[in-house]
């Protein structure tokens, strides 16, 4: 079980879906948990725009409704990230990844700025279309190996996972909010409200770290 990122210290059973805590997944889980707690307790930042060449500055005010909704989305994003970090099932991982994608859209779509909403819309299109390769990869995993459990795949007794399934999984995760798309996220970062926007970035990073482990299995 070397390819699982360490020997699972604790396995939680949900029927056929095992949730396992290995040193690697515990670390990622704790990171997601910490940031979720921070998003719960912290108040949103207030962006200050300073006009060059003068003393004028403006503070952007975030309405309570918007703040509440974005906090809800940030918490949902944190929970989805935590689930994606510890799940031991490929299909379950793709589901959590899809949930991270949609909550990321929700965090930024709540902002009242046409520019930010444009970016959120484009990102939403990508997240939507990325579900095709994402779930297609899970289907290929099941068809080629007969199992979806990462612990079974890591044992090496099942047939090897086709490379194309791994590639589809990776591009699906990319679409749900990963490194090459940080350029688009930078547009979203113009949205005020620091802890919630950082949650988008952190969840993408965590999912990237986890998918690196998943594609090395099987």
């Amino acid at each position, binding site marked *: 079980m070397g390819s699982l990122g360490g020997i699972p210290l604790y396995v939680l*059973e*949900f*029927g*056929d*879906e*095992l949730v396992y805590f290995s040193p690697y997944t515990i670390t990622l889980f704790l990171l997601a948990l910490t940031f979720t707690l921070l998003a719960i307790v912290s108040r949103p930042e207030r962006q200050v725009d300073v006009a060059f060449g003068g003393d004028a500055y403006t503070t952007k005010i975030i309405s309570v409704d918007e703040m509440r*909704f974005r906090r*809800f*989305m940030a918490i*949902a994003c944190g929970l989805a990230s935590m689930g994606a970090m510890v*799940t031991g*099932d490929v*299909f*379950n991982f793709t*589901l*959590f990844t*899809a*949930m991270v994608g*949609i*909550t990321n859209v*929700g965090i930024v*779509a*709540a902002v*009242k700025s046409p520019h930010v909403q*444009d*970016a959120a819309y*484009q*990102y939403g*299109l*990508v997240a939507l*279309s*990325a579900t*095709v*390769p994402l779930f297609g990869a899970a289907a*290929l995993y*099941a*068809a*080629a*190996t*007969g*199992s*979806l*459990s990462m612990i*079974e795949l890591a044992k090496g007794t*099942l*047939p090897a996972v*086709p*490379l*194309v*399934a791994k*590639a*589809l999984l990776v*591009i699906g995760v*990319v*679409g749900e909010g990963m490194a*090459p*798309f940080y*350029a*688009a996220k930078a*547009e979203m970062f113009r949205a005020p409200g620091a802890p919630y926007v950082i949650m988008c970035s952190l969840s993408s990073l965590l999912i990237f770290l986890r998918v690196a482990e998943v594609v090395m299995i099987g």
Partner: protein
Amino acid sequence: MIIRRISHYLCRYEHIVPLFAAACAVLFMASVLALPVTYHEDQLYPKAIDRQSPLDPYDRGGPPFTQVSIHAQYPENSPTAGLVTSYLTPFSLFLADTTLHLGTTIVAHPGGIIDEILYNTRGLDTVVETTILLVAFAIASFLYRKVR
């Protein structure tokens, strides 16, 4: 210099969708070239389809209150798997008894989506799927109310 050009191209978010679409297209073509992928016969949750059953293709088989054997990955974790094979409301039962087309409408009532295999062996999937729907509806309703 080339990196600057690439990042300049990527900095416009309108370019992200065509870029991703192109990447997907290339990968799908590579997937077609990589065919055939060998199908592993020993699958979890095998399903026999009876075209004559009014519940087709959702008929799990087996009389009520007897346990149908289900090939699970970890049978010790789901001791009750296969005990419940259908949840039909009286109206669904009437439809199933009189027509052959309940299978096409089965997602419209309880017992379709949350079927027993999902419920007993892959319950966490069902929870996450419905949570995704909840989040999507929450976003849509928030945006709708904001626009009004």
